[in-house]
């Protein structure tokens, strides 16, 4: 069968990253224009079950490489596998979800096959057989259309920019087992350990994000325990503030984010930072608490569908982007807000 449109299924510990299914939906749209079906590429160790899933979400055939060397993600052997398959079968386009793995993989495959990468794309169309990819640039201040004249065109899709297809358990497709491209002796890196990041919903694919800024430490009426110096007291207050943010996030099934000011002050780890030098997110709802909305923060959350702002300062720039705003003290607003949502959602 012709297989012009490929999708790389990103997985971690044998579980597919949900945005891989979004990529299958986008691939279906491209295949309707370019002809042929949708081919999924799956790599890992003990990942056979992902083939079934990929087919249910819309893949027509699968290349599956199940190999011990692929247990942990390492870009080199994964890239050699994808480049080898693509070099043999000549797809027109390969879609990857924009995860750290998808981006690095696309980068390396582009070198192997002397082609281009169009990363972090938010919309796709086909014109004269070419994929036209729309991507935000300059921290989302501008939109660019990008085209790649070589083949395959390598595109990584921004997480949550495309819809998730319905899984259909009656779908069938061919699974082709393929061998790994590189043996362990020829892989120059080893993964020697792993520390899980804090539990909770991941920022990357959260539908709702509740974020805190410098304002979360601003509650002079909170008395810190004895013996803390100025600095410790500030962090203690901030942690009390982030507890309120965490409570709200818990009720909404949301992830917790932060501004750079909150990260730099040591209130919360850098992993949670949203913005130009943090994560770029596009949830359905972004609730900013005690965040002024500096341009660099906006760069990370501008594409959120609905923005809610809670801030003491009516002039804060965040209100210009917000659908709903409350001018007030987050320490006063958040507890009753969380309670009200809790009772409404449980009834």
């Amino acid at each position, binding site marked *: 069968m012709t297989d012009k449109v490929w999708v790389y299924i990103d997985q971690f510990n044998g579980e597919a990253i949900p945005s891989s299914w979004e990529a299958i939906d986008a691939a279906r749209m491209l295949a309707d224009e370019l002809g042929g079906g949708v081919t999924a590429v799956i790599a890992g160790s003990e990942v056979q079950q992902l083939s079934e899933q990929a087919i249910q979400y819309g893949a027509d055939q699968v290349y599956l490489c199940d190999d011990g060397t692929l247990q942990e993600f390492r870009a080199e052997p994964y890239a050699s596998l994808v480049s080898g398959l693509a070099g043999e079968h000549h797809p027109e386009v390969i879609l990857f979800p924009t995860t750290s793995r998808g981006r690095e993989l696309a980068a*390396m495959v582009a070198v192997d096959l002397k082609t281009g*990468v169009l990363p972090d794309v938010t919309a796709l169309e086909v014109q004269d057989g070419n994929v036209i990819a729309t991507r935000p640039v300059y921290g989302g201040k501008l939109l660019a259309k990008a085209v790649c004249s070589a083949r395959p065109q390598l595109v990584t899709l921004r997480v949550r920019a495309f819809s998730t297809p319905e899984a259909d358990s009656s779908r069938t497709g061919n699974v082709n087992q393929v061998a790994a491209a590189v043996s362990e002796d020829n892989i120059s890196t080893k993964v020697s350990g792993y520390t899980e990041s804090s539990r909770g919903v991941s920022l990357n694919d959260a539908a709702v994000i509740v974020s805190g800024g410098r304002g979360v430490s601003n509650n002079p009426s909170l008395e810190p325990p004895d013996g803390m110096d100025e600095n410790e007291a500030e962090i203690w207050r901030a942690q009390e503030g982030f507890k309120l943010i965490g409570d709200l996030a818990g009720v909404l099934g949301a992830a917790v984010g932060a501004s750079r000011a909150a990260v730099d002050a040591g209130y919360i780890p850098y992993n949670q930072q949203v913005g130009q030098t943090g994560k770029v997110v596009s949830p359905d709802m972004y609730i900013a608490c005690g965040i002024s909305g500096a341009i660099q923060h906006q760069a990370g959350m501008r594409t959120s569908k609905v923005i809610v702002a809670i801030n003491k300062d009516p002039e804060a720039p965040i209100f210009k982007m917000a659908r709903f705003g409350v001018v007030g003290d987050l320490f006063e607003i958040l507890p009753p807000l969380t309670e009200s949502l809790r009772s409404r959602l449980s009834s």
Partner: protein
Amino acid sequence: MKIVVCVKQVPDTTAKVVVEDKQVTWGDMPLVINPWDEYAVETALLQQEAHGGDVTVISVGGEDANVALKHALAMGCGNAILISDPGLENADSLVTSQALAAAIQKIGDVDLACFGRQAIDGDVGVTAAQTARVLGWPSLTLVSAISELDPGSGSIRVERSVEEGRQVVEGKLPAVVSVVKDIGEPRYPSFMGIRKASRAEIPVWSVAEMGAEVSDPVVTWPEISNPPKVEVVTEIISGGSTAEIAETLAEKILEVKVV
């Protein structure tokens, strides 16, 4: 130890970047070193302080890329090289990485090449991995800490910051690393550094001088535009008491049906 750090020049993060007559402009805001690359420079300098050797900063760009190179010199890098060539004017990331790899090879005996995670103009985030691939070196991207580096035995161990947590990876030198913020706050240029940098004559290498060949660019940008204005009508929620405001906001949040 021989270290190279790759930096790019970009518009300041606060610049009002817009498209006018199909051209990207940002008024009279100065160009600056890509903020992520300051972390790469810091990484290079920390490794030099720990293991000795020298740090060379390189950039692919026009004459104006000297601002970024001079900033890195002022922070403490020993040498700078500008890679400039009419053939690189429309470089895509593959071409840029081939040029960077060629320069790294011409410098010779390099143990470590440091990159930022992403350039904040194109937001591409692939050049480090691509340069590693061109060189055939291990690609250690999104590094939040270099926990061990031994130039003698040529080993390196890093922590990578990925979605699911921190991955500890070991590799062999020479290697490419791209770094994230956790690596440590970049130092400010010293007074002496700024003086030295302002006097520096930065050599320019062309592709031919590096004895290299680069591909023809394959990625083009047929259209660049200002994003459509989304008119948000902000509804400020007020009420007699905090409880009342909280109730109304809760109602609104649930009304938009995303939860």
